[in-house]
């Protein structure tokens, strides 16, 4: 087996040995959707949001939440802990390339996040009759850009935090505003103009809107794609700039 696939398999095994992270990253988003769906008024069409139901709005929000959890609580903490304990330094003495190490983490995060997304879409469709994405390529494009932006931010946190614990703390501090503007408490359609404009510029506001647009059968707005790409380039660039092996 190649170094990349062996590393990915090993990292995935290690991931599944951390029950708390597994719960929050994989199980929590579908559970949250079920809880929202249990609220009767969330299942009634609402004329103020164009005849959609609140639960329809929450499916993309919960998908975005899954990405945020992976990037800010999983990836960042894992990498910072590896550096703190000298695991990265140890890897540096082997022929494995830094990029391979990073690639394995991203591959694992992507595969597991996609899994969560599929489960959330399936629960939405089967339990609450939420329609599946009508424009699938657009949906995937929005999802990939959102994942890239969030993983880049996670890696930036890992690069800047001195220890695994501090990476966890910084990740949590960033997590709440990011998921707030993704609409976890107030969906974007219910936000006032100022909040929605701020949301448009955060990493997950455009993600949720793009997923929602693609579900309705439209292509995402160029502004939203550009904002996600911007976060990827800026956070990814800074992460690469400040990345340290020890």
């Amino acid at each position, binding site marked *: 087996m190649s170094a990349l696939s062996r590393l990915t398999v090993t990292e995935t*095994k290690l991931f599944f040995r951390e029950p708390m992270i597994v719960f929050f990253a994989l199980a929590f988003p579908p559970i949250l959707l079920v809880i929202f769906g249990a609220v009767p008024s969330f299942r009634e069409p609402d004329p103020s949001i164009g005849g959609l139901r609140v639960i329809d709005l929450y499916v993309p929000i919960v998908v975005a939440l899954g990405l945020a959890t992976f990037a800010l609580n999983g990836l960042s903490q894992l990498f910072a802990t590896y550096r703190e304990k000298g695991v990265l330094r140890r890897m540096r003495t082997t022929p494995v390339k830094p990029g391979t190490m990073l690639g394995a983490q991203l591959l694992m995060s992507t595969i597991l996040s996609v899994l969560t997304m599929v489960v959330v879409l399936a629960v939405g469709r089967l339990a609450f009759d939420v329609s599946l994405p009508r424009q699938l390529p657009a949906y995937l494009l929005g999802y990939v850009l959102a994942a890239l932006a969030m993983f880049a931010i996670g890696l930036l946190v890992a690069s800047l935090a001195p220890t695994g614990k501090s990476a966890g703390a910084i990740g949590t501090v960033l997590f709440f505003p990011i998921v707030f503007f993704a609409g976890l408490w107030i969906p974007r359609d219910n936000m006032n103009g100022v909040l929605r404009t701020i949301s448009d510029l955060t990493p997950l506001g455009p993600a949720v809107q793009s997923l929602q647009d693609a579900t309705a059968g439209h292509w995402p707005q160029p502004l939203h794609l550009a904002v996600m790409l911007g976060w990827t380039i800026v956070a990814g660039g800074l992460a690469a700039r400040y990345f340290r092996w020890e």
Partner: protein
Amino acid sequence: MAIIEVDGLVKRYGDHTVVDGVGFAVEQGEIFGILGPNGAGKTTTVECVEGLRTPDGGTIRVCDIDPRRDTGELRQLLGAQLQESELPDKLTVGEAMELFSSFYRHPADWRDLVDTLRLSGKLGTQFRRLSGGQKQRLSIALALVGNPRVAVLDELTTGLDPQARRDTWDLIEDIRDRGVTILLVTHFMEEAERLCDRLAVIDSGRLVALDSPAGLVSRVDERQRIRFRPSAPLDHAVLTALPEVTSVERAGSQLVVSGTGDLLLAVTTVLARNQVVAADLRVEQTSLEDAFVALTGRPFDA
């Protein structure tokens, strides 16, 4: 040809020169020691050899490779065991071996290595549950899994109990017998004396001496001392007449004979001829520790 060549190595951190003109050559199949007190610059020196740090001056060749220029090739040829580096807590011994062997072009049979390092019973054990000695043995196994030509072992036995330390020494000799050249960093005199074919003594970033352990000792002082309790009174003149003997002193019921060369043989021959038996006989030789004090002008504070 030397397998590791270090020439005029200089490394600074800010204004502080940590390594100042260190040079040595390690021959194929040797156990070569770098000995010195804490903070002498030993680790920095080997980290330059491992290509983990960029020297500020001097040249390094490992198997004729420049560690900074052809890092990829160096990683295939050099196995490293680092001070204070860990593995993920929940990674098992077997998974670590499998993972690390996937990094190399021509890996060793990791099951063989695990046997040699007496870890076969621990394949399913997570890293966090290993004892200090087991962690160190795993660390050696990982350093060797790529079938390296050179293994760099940094402070390998620090923190181990005396039995684990002795076991580890035996392992290192086994590894050398497999044809691996070993660069060993240590601040234990006993370890250096027991294992190393040759030693570079480093103090405050400078190379103080480079020789075999015995050579270092003899360079400082060739004198030996013999202590014994004679079974019958003995005329000192019988001993002082010997060319090997420089002085004879009485210390209580014991005689202390100092001298050089084949002192023991000369003295015991004379005693036998005079029908005197030497009880509680002890030979005292200059130790590597004495040599260090003499070379650096200060006590070894390891």
